[in-house]
């Protein structure tokens, strides 16, 4: 294999595909990147079996070929080069990277050991999904990172009415986003996709046009975004029935400026010195008072102007969870609906039903 290209073209490809590799896993080859050249088309692939990312790039190809090189090292080398042309050459044992007066030779893995990358899924559903980037940002954060509860590490993507619905929960909060009019799935069809894969997808989307193509198989799904393709296994099992968790009505409604609330929360959170310290929110007719008290460190209190209708009360939340919800509500104002200090509260944008973030309070002694 031999080709030439701009450093930035190669860096985008190796760093993008490298995000799917697992350098510390039990199989060394999974810490490698597969570089395949056919004509002028370079395809760089990284995988940890569950997740695969392939990035295509157009290069000045000399000889076709294949090599598997350590992802981290290769990426670091390419990144260290000055902008300009990079020449890459590989034989059975080494990959050579040359730029300017630098020349690196890196030992490669046996290319035939590299796992077969999932073939394009059968029963492909092909369609464009717009608005997915924002929806992922709003929903994946509520998924669990607890591998002991695999179902909750996924994001449910389901056909809902004439659109698509994304739902995730870690059992402390639940995020739900509707994408009306996006008809990617058939009626009643739903899949459970690992949130890790969707976080990577979101990264890809942020650096490309927000147009995604989904192909769906029985056990895997693949997303094509620009020059990159991300393939992930699906999580098997039934997502909890989230509908019963969402209260049908709320007696108390708070409307508050999103930025004002966020700024105040981030300030008072400084006093939350461990992960279990809650922020207490005292709800009053024309304002709310946020307070964080940590015995050994001190206290922070801040008042924020707000409109509140309902009975006066204090409800406590995990400040990180609350901030993560407020952050992704769109619009200048957010609405917080509450029942009482021990029942789920709901954050949503004012005047829109597309998004909701259900959050369980913290019980304070």
């Amino acid at each position, binding site marked *: 294999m031999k080709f030439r290209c701009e450093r930035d073209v190669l860096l985008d490809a190796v760093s993008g595909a490298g995000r799917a590799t697992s350098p510390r896993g039990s199989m060394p080859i999974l810490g490698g990147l597969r570089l395949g050249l056919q004509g002028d088309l370079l395809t760089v692939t990284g995988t940890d079996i569950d997740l695969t990312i392939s990035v295509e790039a157009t290069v000045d190809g000399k000889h076709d070929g294949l090599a598997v090189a350590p992802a981290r090292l290769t990426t670091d080398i390419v990144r260290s080069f000055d902008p300009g042309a990079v020449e890459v050459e590989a034989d059975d044992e080494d990959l050579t990277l040359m730029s300017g007066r630098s020349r690196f030779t890196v030992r490669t893995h046996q290319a035939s050991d590299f796992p077969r990358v999932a073939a394009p899924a059968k029963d492909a559903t092909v369609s464009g999904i717009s608005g997915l980037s924002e929806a992922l940002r709003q929903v994946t954060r509520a998924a669990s990172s607890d591998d*002991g509860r695999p179902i909750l590490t996924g994001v449910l993507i389901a056909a809902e009415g004439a659109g698509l619905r994304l739902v995730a929960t870690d*059992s402390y909060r639940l995020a739900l986003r509707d994408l009306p009019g996006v008809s990617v799935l058939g009626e009643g069809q739903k899949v459970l996709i690992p949130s890790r894969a969707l976080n990577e997808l979101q990264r890809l989307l942020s650096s490309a046009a927000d147009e995604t193509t989904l192909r769906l198989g029985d056990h895997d799904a693949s997303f094509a975004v620009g020059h990159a393709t991300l393939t992930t296994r699906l999580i098997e099992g039934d997502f909890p029935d989230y509908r019963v968790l969402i209260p049908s009505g709320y007696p108390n409604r708070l409307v508050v400026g999103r930025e004002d609330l966020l700024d105040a929360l981030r300030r008072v959170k400084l006093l939350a010195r461990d992960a279990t310290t809650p922020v207490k929110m005292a709800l009053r007719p024309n304002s709310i008072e946020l307070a964080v008290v940590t015995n050994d460190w001190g206290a922070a209190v801040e008042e924020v102007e707000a409109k509140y209708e309902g009975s006066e009360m204090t409800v406590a939340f995990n400040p990180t969870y609350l901030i993560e919800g407020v952050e992704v509500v769109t619009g200048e104002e957010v609405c917080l609906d509450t029942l009482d200090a021990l029942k789920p509260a709901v954050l949503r944008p004012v005047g829109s039903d597309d998004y909701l973030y259900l959050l369980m309070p*913290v019980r304070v002694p």
Partner: protein
Amino acid sequence: MRVVGEASRRWVLHVDMDAFFAAVEALDDPTLAGRAVIVGGEGRRGVVASCSYEARSFGVRSAMPSVEARRLCPEAVFVAPRHGRYAQVSRQLHEVFAGFTPLVEGISLDEAFLDVTGAERIYGPPARIGRLIRRRVLEQTGLVCSVGGSRVKFVAKMASKAAKPRVTRSFGQRSRPNEPSGAPTAFGAAGDGGVANGGGPGSGVFIVPEGQEVAFLHPHPVEALWGVGPATSCRLARMGIKTVGELASVPPRTLEEVLGRAHGAHLARLARGLDDREVQPERATKSISQEETFSDDRFDVEGLRVPVLGMADSVSSRVRQAGMRARTVTIKVRYRDRTTRTRSYTLKEGTDTTSDIARAALALLSEAECERGVRLIGVSLTNLAEQGGTEASQLSLDLGGEAKRNPSCRDATSAVVDEVRRRFGPESLTTAALVGPARRSVGLS
């Protein structure tokens, strides 16, 4: 030289059980009494956890490989440790201690510091309190302990060593001479009333009278000091320092240069009998752990699931007994090449249920590189908090189906398990996976 520690207005006793595990075994099985008993794993890699004085007279010591212990003392009876039973006896001991003072600091199952400053008015001088404690412990548990006392905490710990029975080479002839004799020699002539009242070295109670701390300390080898391990003692030996007295003669500045600032300064103070640490009652438990060394390296994760599950069961039972909840579960894996790796998982909320802890431990186990050969595995709980304490608790959504967790039901199960074990012994009830032919495949619902 001036002697007494700055916070010297208190009296500290250190109570240390004699050959604790072995003595408990002999108590429960009278046929073991008077014999060389070794508590510990008998396998190739087993180590001696505790041994009777009869075994010690053959040169057997704690932490010695069982193979070596067997060679030194072929007639010894090996007994597998029963930590649940020792913990039970330990609780009885603490009940005894609590009768003398509320200021009790347990440092292990068989060792505790007691601040008896206030108890003097009720029970008399420290030596008398020491003798009363020994008698009460014997009555309540049938076990023998040694008591050391001093105005200075760490000196009390060394004094309890001096109070211990002597190990003699002639079998069966350990003794507690009533008169002070032998080492620590320089101290034999102590004039204050404390020793006379308390009996001398080897007699079960040894009180270092106020003002005699340095005289007591100086003949001891430096290794006897708390905080002097093999590395430090080796460095000191190179400077020609073997005894505490020699250590005290070195300027503190020099020690700080050789041993590092904090450690050097600390040892310089100890060597002069200075220690302002107080007895800390209810010493907060920081971690609860258990580990097992295998006689043969294990290469498959299946062969490790059963022991990990057993350890998860045991540590979760202990965290419940302590009335605490744990948030962090850690597994420790030592591979064949002796490299040790730990992996931990922190839960969002504290738990004391076996199934939560086992699930986390098994998930961590699945990340271990078993093909490298596993020599030792351990499970520990950290990030402990008092049950129903002042901690705020994050509430959960009530998820149905597969993701469901029902803490109140699990709590009830664990409580019943604990109660059955309390009444019928630690082995009376366990997970099906840990007994019989079902040991092979382990999963958790």
